[in-house]
């Protein structure tokens, strides 16, 4: 692994009682690249995500985030909301977690909470309706409008998020995460439940986020069309350990990976591959 990693996961351990969900996992995600974390169901991918985004406190190991300005943040020492507020790591959820009773625009405004709190002078200036607050609010609305346009939801800005179709909700959740202006965007199965056309649109969106915003992306995905098309680097997990990593091409041809997905022995997998070709 050469280059400039934004996120370094070093011998990460996560135990739940006697169960070891993640065992000495080490990998790195490159800056301004898309890194995919794949593996069969129950491999521990979402647990890794929850450790990175502060929902779990790891049992051992280190997670380092290197900001553009040279700061390094130990993510395992932050928790809860501070991961998003201070470390600028945003995430989405496997089962969409929007605010269903609020409009799409409001969802994106909530995402800018910390910036707006500062602008409203911790509410006091905002309560008086000072011009500086009004400008800040207008800027926040403009940012939300930009992202609604990017994800193609501008005409549904004033609809309740819970009323949007499934695919739109997925994209709105990504837009909401981007409104926190993160350096690292963690997506938990963003293509789950999307049809072929929608996941094609998702690919374009993620590539544009990487290229235009320069945001690094870490994603968990089962949809191989997404993983193979847009990932720069793929990490494969099974039973809490890393079994392979590399470019999409090398991972696809790795017998260990195929064995893990087929639930078969390595030798059998090699036999299958050889008989197939």
């Amino acid at each position: 692994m050469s280059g400039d990693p934004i996120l370094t996961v070093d011998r990460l351990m996560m135990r739940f009682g006697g169960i070891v969900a993640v065992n000495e996992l080490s990998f790195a995600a490159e800056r301004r690249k898309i890194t995919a974390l794949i593996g069969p169901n129950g491999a521990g991918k979402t647990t890794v995500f929850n450790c990175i985004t502060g929902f779990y406190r790891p049992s051992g190991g280190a997670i380092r985030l290197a900001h553009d300005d040279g700061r390094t943040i130990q993510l395992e020492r932050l928790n809860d909301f501070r991961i998003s507020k201070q470390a600028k790591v945003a995430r989405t959820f496997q089962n969409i977690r929007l605010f269903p009773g609020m409009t799409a625009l409001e969802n994106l405004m909530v995402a800018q909470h910390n910036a707006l709190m500062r602008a409203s002078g911790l509410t006091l200036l905002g309560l008086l309706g000072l011009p500086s607050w009004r400008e800040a609010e207008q800027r926040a609305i403009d940012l939300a409008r930009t992202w609604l346009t990017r994800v193609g939801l501008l005409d549904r800005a004033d609809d309740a998020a819970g009323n949007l179709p499934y695919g739109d909700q997925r994209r709105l959740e990504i837009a909401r995460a981007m409104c926190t202006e993160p350096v690292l965007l963690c997506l938990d199965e963003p293509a789950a439940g999307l049809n072929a056309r929608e996941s094609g649109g998702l690919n374009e969106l993620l590539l544009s986020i990487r290229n235009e915003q320069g945001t690094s992306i870490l994603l968990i995905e089962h949809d191989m069309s997404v993983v193979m098309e847009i990932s720069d680097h793929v990490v494969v997990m099974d039973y809490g350990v890393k079994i392979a990593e590399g470019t999409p091409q090398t991972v696809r041809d790795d017998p260990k990976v195929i064995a893990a997905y087929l639930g078969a022995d390595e030798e059998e997998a090699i036999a299958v591959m050889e008989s197939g070709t």
Partner: protein
Amino acid sequence: MSATSARPSHAAQPSGSAFILKKALISALVALVLFSLMIGIRTEAGPQGGLIYWTRFGDLAALVGAVFGGSIVVELLRQWWGPVDKDRVVPKPVQSAMSFAGRWLAPALLVFTFLVPVIFYNQRYILDLSILVLTYVMLGWGLNVVVGLAGLLDLGYVAFYAVGAYSYALLATNFGLSFWVCLPLAGILAAFWGVLLGFPVLRLRGDYLAIVTLAFGEIIRLVIINWQSLTGGPNGVSGIPRPTMFGIPLTAGDDGLAAKLGIEFSPTHRLVFLFYLILAMALITNWVTIRLRRLPIGRAWEALREDEVACRALGINTTTTKLTAFATGAMFGGLAGAFFATRQGFISPESFTFQESALVLAIVVLGGMGSQLGVALAALTMIGGFELFRGLDQYRMLVFGMAMVLLMIWRPRGLIGHRAPTVFLERNQAISSDLVKEGHG
């Protein structure tokens, strides 16, 4: 094949006379079992202290017969009405009329409220009642911040009302501070207690939060009862000074307002003054709440109600967000408490029982959680309606309970269930109550 499958099935809704009779018989049987001991046999202590009893089988037969007949009538009515759905319960023209009324209701209500002391100047009872209603409107709006916006179920809201009332009463009687100095102090003290309550309950959700807040309300009341040296215990605090109009007392004396203005003194002046005072306080509560909803803190409250996990993922500090909700709600409760103390001139722990908390919570739930207009309407219905049924004596609670049950069947999410967005680009459209969450605590 397709013709048979397309035919609507009647089997799902049994409607034959045999079904009706069967149902009526079962009801009659249940009634017989229930009433046979309660009505059929009457026991009493005899003259020698022994137990004597006699039977009343005639009354029992009449009651069982009534249940049998009533069951048939109810079932026939149900079949005549057809399956219950929303559109049938409220006919279309009524719905459209209501949406028209909805737009003009709030301004009309406000104008009417301003004119109440003019219209009912000579009716002391109505003025007193309107002051009471407005007090509950303010309490409802205060609790609405905690329950309606932040989705934190608070069953001990009366504690903050009590803190505000006692703050003013004790500061005014012990240190001679005026109402206008004590009012902000009462608000600040109540907010402080709100934060104090907030800390231990931050991790609790739903039922657990409700139980702890309920306990907090009781603790405050018990402390007031037992801390006799400070609060006077069950005797309460009396001789609380009446509010002055910026230093000018509303009394009959030479330095009173009436004498200064050169008009004849009337005790109604003070009532009118109290009316406009609580109206102003309630409207400030309303204005601040509406304002806060459009600020990041208010949006964070509502987001917290919708999904706490997502809030954390977006970098919102859920601890301070919850505490500010508790503190803001408590502050309004405390201000209303200070007003209550100055209006009554006397307060005792009896005014701050759990029943008050339940009443204010009922106002918020009935009004539609989060809706300002709904809460005002519910306070008017609950407090005003309660007075309306005063002639029914002991049946008052029964009628009132029935009315509430019916209202909740008709509008399960409160009088005004939909939510208005806080910001919009093109269309300001209300959000259906089906999508808005109640919060998990």
